[in-house]
């Protein structure tokens, strides 16, 4: 169970906005947050990861409190048990794909686990390559399994398909669904592309003027933002 209610003043293209969000995720739930570029979607993920500090609010994951402004609790990002797939993937350029996974896996040389993940993502053949030799789709899959290999309690996906062409996007969305089905990790996907949501998520939250609305509350995803 993941619960968070957060407030943070941000500056968007339309001027200052107060992000004021309140969300609960069930066990293994996949939620998409949809909104225009610059609306504050990535800021939400960054606050959950501990990379940005909310002005007020709380974050709790299972029994652990990661942030609580009233009790002055702010757990460091490295102690939050999150998997974060960044828009630009952020694979370490000086490491091979396998070394990226070993580094994520606390440096343990547990080759069987790493082999399994490489196999799941169909990356066994390119495990010795450095990121700049991987295709966009391979980088995306690599970033995804690197985030998952630590078995995080919350998976955050920040526009992970934005750098991919349409066929690759579709293929990887299917793979993400398969992986989510297998690991059942609560997942939040942030996107400005309605097509991503249509394929991936049953529950959609729309971010408008700093507030998240359930799609079922009558709001529809605009075709263009």
């Amino acid at each position, binding site marked *: 169970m993941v619960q968070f209610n957060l407030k943070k003043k941000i500056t968007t293209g339309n001027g200052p906005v107060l992000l004021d969000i309140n969300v609960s995720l069930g066990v293994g739930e996949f939620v998409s947050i949809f909104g225009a570029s610059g609306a504050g979607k990535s800021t939400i993920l960054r606050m959950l*990861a501990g990379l940005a500090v909310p002005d007020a609010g709380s974050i709790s994951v299972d029994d652990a409190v990661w942030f609580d402004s009233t009790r002055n609790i702010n757990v460091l990002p*490295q102690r939050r048990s999150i998997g*974060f797939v960044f828009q630009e993937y952020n694979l370490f*350029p000086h490491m091979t794909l396998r070394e990226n996974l070993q580094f994520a896996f606390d440096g343990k040389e547990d080759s069987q686990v790493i082999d399994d993940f490489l196999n799941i993502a169909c990356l066994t053949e390119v495990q010795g390559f450095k990121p700049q030799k991987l295709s966009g789709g391979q980088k995306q899959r690599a970033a995804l399994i690197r*985030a998952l290999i630590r078995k995080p309690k919350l998976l955050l996906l920040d526009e992970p398909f934005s750098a991919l062409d349409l066929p690759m996007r579709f293929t990887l969305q299917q793979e993400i669904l398969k992986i989510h089905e297998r690991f059942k990790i609560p997942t939040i996907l942030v996107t400005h592309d309605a097509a991503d949501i249509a394929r991936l998520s049953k529950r959609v939250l729309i971010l408008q003027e700093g507030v998240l609305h359930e799609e079922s509350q009558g709001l529809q995803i605009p075709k263009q933002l």
Partner: protein
Amino acid sequence: MMHPQDLTPVVLTLKLATLSTLVLIVIGIPLAWWITFSKTRLRYVVETLVTMPLVLPPTVLGFYLLLLLGPASSVGSFLQHYFDVRLVFTFTGLVIGSVIFSLPFMVNPIKAGFEAIPNSLIEAALTLGKSKRDILFKVILPNSKPALITGIVMSFIHTVGEFGVVLMIGGNIPGKTRLVSMAIFDQVEALNYDAANFYAVIMVAASFVILFLFYLFNRRIKVF
């Protein structure tokens, strides 16, 4: 005619440059890290102090080090009284003076290298649960190789060419603190131009070779 003992300044210079560079690696990397990533305003003070040897005349720095470390000062008398350590006119004093004088040559390139690393890589490491130490040694330093090599080479070569600071704090004692730069000065004063030329040629050749190799290989080092 040169005698074998004439090489003592060369050996001393190389020993000083090597030791100073090693000390600078140990203190320069954490200092560059702190200046780059610290959020306190104190970092600007430290950054300024680190860079001051670049703009100050070496004699000014040497003069204050002489005052600070000399037996008449509280630091100097404390060290001599309690530890029987004397720093002025000793090789240890030379190392201290060289480290302070060459500090910007080590810290500034490394700091520039650290600043060039995308913050997103550091954030990725944080989300993977990595400590600051792991991030420094496994993410930042491997991606800063050219900056590290620049810092090491520049510090070494700058120490080799020092004159003002080492003269003031070392005292130009033959066999103990007389370096190549001082030996050249002595030989010119004594009108022994051949001997001065002997040392000068060594300096020019060594500097050329080190810088040539640096420029040749540093561009070939691939970070990724």
